[in-house]
């Protein structure tokens, strides 16, 4: 009787080549990271149950679920607005089964959950020219006044839907943007992001979520 190994794979296993790419120079203008091993759940309030859903979220995560395009950091997860009366819960994958079970229990009756942990790939764009690179494939206005830390948006890149939100600035003082892209598109979008960044110099890497 053979043992069946269930090795996991990243959708960027071929596309992501760690290290420096594009223009040379002391510092890369753009830093790209794939953030691996996440739990991602879409929470959609049931008909007329938006309020209950909010209470449940508060109970589990200790924060109000975002009612407008924002990313809110809760106790054990980040809650990202993903549409009217719905949001995406994202957390590092620790014990997946119990993470999902806990949510299923709290939201029972108030919201429908959809596990998208494998349906999306999380790409983080940072560095001094990160914003300039994003401007080549996103029509969003990412100016500090228009898109401050904590802002989120559902938008389109290359005609496919993407969730984008801004977290606290990096150690270098430059903005940090997170992009959730559909798994099957991620190989393609990664290439688009890299192509848009080459003229600034790119540092690419991959790491577990923490």
């Amino acid at each position, binding site marked *: 009787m053979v043992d069946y190994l269930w090795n996991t794979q990243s959708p960027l296993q071929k596309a992501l080549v760690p290290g420096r790419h594009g223009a040379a120079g002391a510092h890369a203008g753009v830093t790209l990271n794939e953030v691996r091993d996440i739990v991602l759940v879409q929470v959609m*309030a*049931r008909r007329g149950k938006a309020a209950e859903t909010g209470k449940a979220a508060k109970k589990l995560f200790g924060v109000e679920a975002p009612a407008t395009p924002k990313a809110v950091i809760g106790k054990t997860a980040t809650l990202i607005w993903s*549409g*009217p*009366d719905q949001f995406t819960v994202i957390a590092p994958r620790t014990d997946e089964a119990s993470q999902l079970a806990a949510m299923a229990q709290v939201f029972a009756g108030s919201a429908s959950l959809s596990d998208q942990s494998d349906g999306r790939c999380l790409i983080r764009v940072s560095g001094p020219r990160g914003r300039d690179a994003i401007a080549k494939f996103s*029509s969003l206005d990412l100016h500090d006044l228009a898109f401050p830390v904590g802002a989120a*948006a*559902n938008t389109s890149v290359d*005609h496919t839907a993407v969730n984008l939100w801004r977290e606290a600035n990096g150690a270098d003082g430059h903005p940090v943007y997170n992009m959730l892209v559909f798994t099957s598109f991620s190989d393609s979008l990664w290439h688009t992001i890299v192509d848009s960044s080459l003229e600034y110099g790119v540092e690419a890497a991959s790491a577990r979520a923490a």
Partner: protein
Amino acid sequence: MRIACPFCGERENGEFTYLGDASPKRPNFAVDSGESPGGVEDAFYDYVYLRDNVAGYMREYWYHGGGCRSWLIAERNTVTHEFRSVTAAPGVGAAKPVQAGE
């Protein structure tokens, strides 16, 4: 063209898909109500095919599929392309439509 999604804010029209005139309403009919099939067919023919196709402001359906996946109802001028309003469809998100008598 830019469309002000009531949930996401102003966005490029590439994020939206267009359906068309929002005025025709899908006829309601009860199967076995004895309504003449011809009559029901006429009502659906009107709903599916006939359009006012106004030059000026019209109410129309846009789907923010490249964004928050909401169906929206916009008032847009077909001559100037100016939007007067963009509102959410009655069943967007978890909204509970007001039933008659409520």
